[in-house]
């Protein structure tokens, strides 16, 4: 499926851009994560890798549908 990915912090550096249309095999956050790591191995080096849909953290089993907007959340460091 094809989704719209938005990246912040180091995730933006890894993707090389803020927004990206990403195509992968699968229909969950977990599968998206696997596909992203495969294509961008630097994601595997991070302390953690989370995802948000509609401004909420979502787990690996969260179902994705075509054209959905997914935000990549690398380790946060506010404060």
């Amino acid at each position, binding site marked *: 499926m094809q989704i719209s990915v938005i990246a912040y912090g*180091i995730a933006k550096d890894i993707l090389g851009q803020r927004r990206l249309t990403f195509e992968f095999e699968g229909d969950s956050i977990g599968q998206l994560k696997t596909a992203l790591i495969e294509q961008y191995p630097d994601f595997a080096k991070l302390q953690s890798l989370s995802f948000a849909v509609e401004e*909420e953290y979502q787990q690996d089993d969260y179902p994705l549908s075509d054209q959905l907007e997914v935000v990549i959340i690398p380790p946060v*460091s*506010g*404060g």
Partner: protein
Amino acid sequence: MIDIQLLDTPLSVAQCSQLVADPAAGGTVVFVGTVRNSTQARTVQRLDFEAYAPMAIKEMRKIAEETMEKYGALKCAIHHRVGSLDILEIAVIIAVATPHRKAAFAACKFAIDQLKETVPIWKKEIFADGEVWVSAHP
């Protein structure tokens, strides 16, 4: 009362302290996070903060709500800065007012600990010879 702000202009300790002033408050604790001049013995020139703004505001509000409920707080303000900050500039202010002072310390500590865990804000340390996204790697 909860006041959440994500700002690209300087934060004010006086304002946050005023925002949580309450005639029933016995104690107010304010945490002020400022930009430090060094990290692991390297000299920091400045910090760049970036936020996934709508979600950062949502997550800060959740923390304030949990703080209010868990510690019986009367008022809670969380202000976070974004953009490029020099040494000594304020990155975050959390102010909590509670009826008794002991709870104010616990509540404010809880809020800043949570903020550092869950709020989608990222800081990059700028050194003379490079840049590092804080906490990104193990």
